[in-house]
């Protein structure tokens, strides 16, 4: 059923989370993400959920992890500096395999940077921000509609793969107002329930099989869990043997990378016959779409591959786009963080980085100007 509303991206994030069944939010105010917390304080108590403003970002994600362990899906929202503070807990959630969602509304960095201006400088922080080898899921919305849809999807992936999932929004997507269909999610779109059966004595918190991830038994049930971010065995007890460390680390990577086809979400605009292709994500994908429309008007066969899934990196789709194009350009509000990933997939196609770090969005004309010489 359609339920069209005109609202802000950040508000749509809160709505998407609640539609997916999230009933816990813990956060710390930071521009430009604060509306997510504000909306949660308004909406969550009405649906039996809990909002709490914590003393810092470490406490925020710790509380979200705690709620998830107690069986209530939770999330937090922040921006660059707060995201830095959360990294240790993202590692903790990865290692303990605690489902949770972290929304990052990116702003100009490094550090305090440009608090009220948009950026996409945290793409690599999302990928590699916490210590140690691992893989991660990050989804990047480019519209208010996608703020709703991808946040809901983030909870689906978090529960399915028992992992923290990052929603990589930005200061433009989060702050802009658009129509959004606050549709009810179908049964198969809702995060899988943690169904645990069998003799509690046989339950293992971990099993290190990427194709058979045991659901996290909520505290308070007959299935005892032991969660530890130290190298652990199936029961969750510390186990530092070299072969076990190897098994744990490879498993944490494999459980995401082996399911890349299911996790990858991309959208194609005018790609059928495109030989000038933009690969972009978030707010810059909107700018690139504008550039595609303008270029098409002037007869250039331009197209856009929008990455809704940024991590794991959609190598297959990007490689295909590189294969069909004469020129590929990557507009983004950083100095080429995704460009480098695209370059790693490239086998000789002319490839252009279109970076911008002024705290302003890329205009379609800037994108067109950047590739002019190549046409």
């Amino acid at each position, binding site marked *: 059923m359609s339920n069209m509303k005109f609202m802000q991206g950040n508000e749509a994030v809160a709505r998407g989370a609640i539609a997916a069944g999230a009933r816990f939010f813990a956060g710390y105010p930071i521009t430009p993400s604060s509306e997510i917390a504000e909306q949660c304080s308004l909406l969550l108590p*009405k649906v039996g959920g809990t909002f*709490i403003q*914590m*003393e810092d970002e470490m406490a925020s994600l710790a509380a979200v992890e*705690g*709620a998830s362990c*107690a069986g209530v899906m939770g999330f937090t929202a922040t921006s660059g500096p707060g995201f830095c503070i959360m990294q240790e807990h993202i590692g903790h959630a990865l290692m303990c395999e605690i489902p949770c969602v972290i929304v990052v509304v990116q702003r100009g960095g490094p550090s305090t940077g440009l608090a009220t201006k948009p950026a996409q400088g945290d793409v690599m922080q999302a990928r590699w921000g916490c210590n140690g080898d691992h893989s991660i899921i990050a989804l990047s919305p480019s519209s208010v509609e996608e703020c709703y849809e991808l946040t809901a999807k983030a909870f689906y992936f978090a529960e399915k793969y028992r992992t923290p999932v990052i929603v990589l929004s930005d200061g433009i997507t989060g702050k802009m107002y658009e129509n959004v269909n606050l549709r009810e999610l179908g049964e198969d779109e809702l995060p899988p329930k943690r169904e645990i059966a069998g003799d509690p004595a046989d339950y293992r918190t971990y099993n290190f099989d990427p194709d058979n991830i045991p659901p996290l038994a909520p505290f*308070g049930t007959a299935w005892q869990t*032991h969660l*530890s971010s130290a190298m652990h065995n199936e029961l969750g007890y510390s186990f530092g043997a070299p072969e076990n460390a190897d098994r744990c680390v490879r498993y944490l990577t494999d459980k995401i990378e082996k399911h890349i086809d299911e996790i990858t979400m991309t959208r194609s605009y005018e790609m059928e016959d495109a030989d000038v292709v933009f690969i972009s994500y978030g707010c810059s994908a909107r700018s690139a779409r504008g550039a595609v429309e303008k270029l098409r008007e002037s007869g250039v066969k331009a197209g856009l591959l929008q990455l809704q899934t940024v991590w794991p990196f959609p190598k297959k789709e990007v490689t295909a786009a590189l294969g069909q194009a004469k020129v590929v350009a990557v507009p983004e509000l950083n100095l080429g963080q995704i460009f480098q990933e695209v370059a790693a997939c490239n086998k000789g196609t002319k490839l252009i980085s279109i970076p911008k770090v002024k705290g302003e969005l890329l205009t379609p004309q800037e994108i067109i100007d950047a590739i002019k010489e190549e046409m």
Partner: protein
Amino acid sequence: MYTYNDYIKEEKLPHIWCAGCGNGIVLNALLHALADMQIPPEEVVIVTGSGCLARLVTYPNTSTIKMLHGRVLAGATGIKLANPNLKVFCLMGDGDGATIGGNHLIHCARRNIDVTAIICNNFNYGMTGGQYSATTPYGAITTTSRYGLVEENFNMAELVKACGAPYVARCSATDVLNLRKYIIEATQKKGFGFIEVLSACVTHYGKNNKMGDAPNMMRQIDSMCVPAARAKNMTEEELAGKYITGKLVDRNDLIDFGTSYQRLREEVTAK
């Protein structure tokens, strides 16, 4: 009817702690208190962080989680608010609870989250080799204060009291029966229950400060304890370097966060 044996995984013993360490006493008191209260093991969650005491998670026959260093009470806040039926026990050392986690301690007490927090204060970082913490006394020798510490320490019980916690107690690890009683009272109190246990780190703090073997060190810690009733008649000079022990706060006039929030939920839903 649950007995002590229902709460301990005997096959995991002996524990890893040094001879003379107070951590085993705290574990023992906690599990006895659980049996005294007849709390079903599946309703118990034990939360720890990092450090010697954090290794406690290996032994109880309950669900456990090791949070990050210092974030024990922040994690416990989420657990308790998500499922108020759980009995949440937060076991921390002075590093975890009062130093790296000091901010969460004061806010958890201020918010009055209905969990039981036990800080086992052994005056230093044992696991990492005896460095000073926020509870190490002025002048003490540690591996990072070789010439004597030039910082003042926290009075944790007073700190938590000032933050508005409804239950605060302090005792020496040798005071086993009172410790067990305080754990029960702190758990039954609707709100933040806090217990500071003064404990011996024979291996590091005791060695560095020439406090002798385990019995000697425990005797010295006991000699620093002054029961609250006696402390009332003592001067500030007489109390210097002493730790006032006993039940220090027991209030029934405060509403815990979970109860307040449930009221809010009911009000906004009724509208």
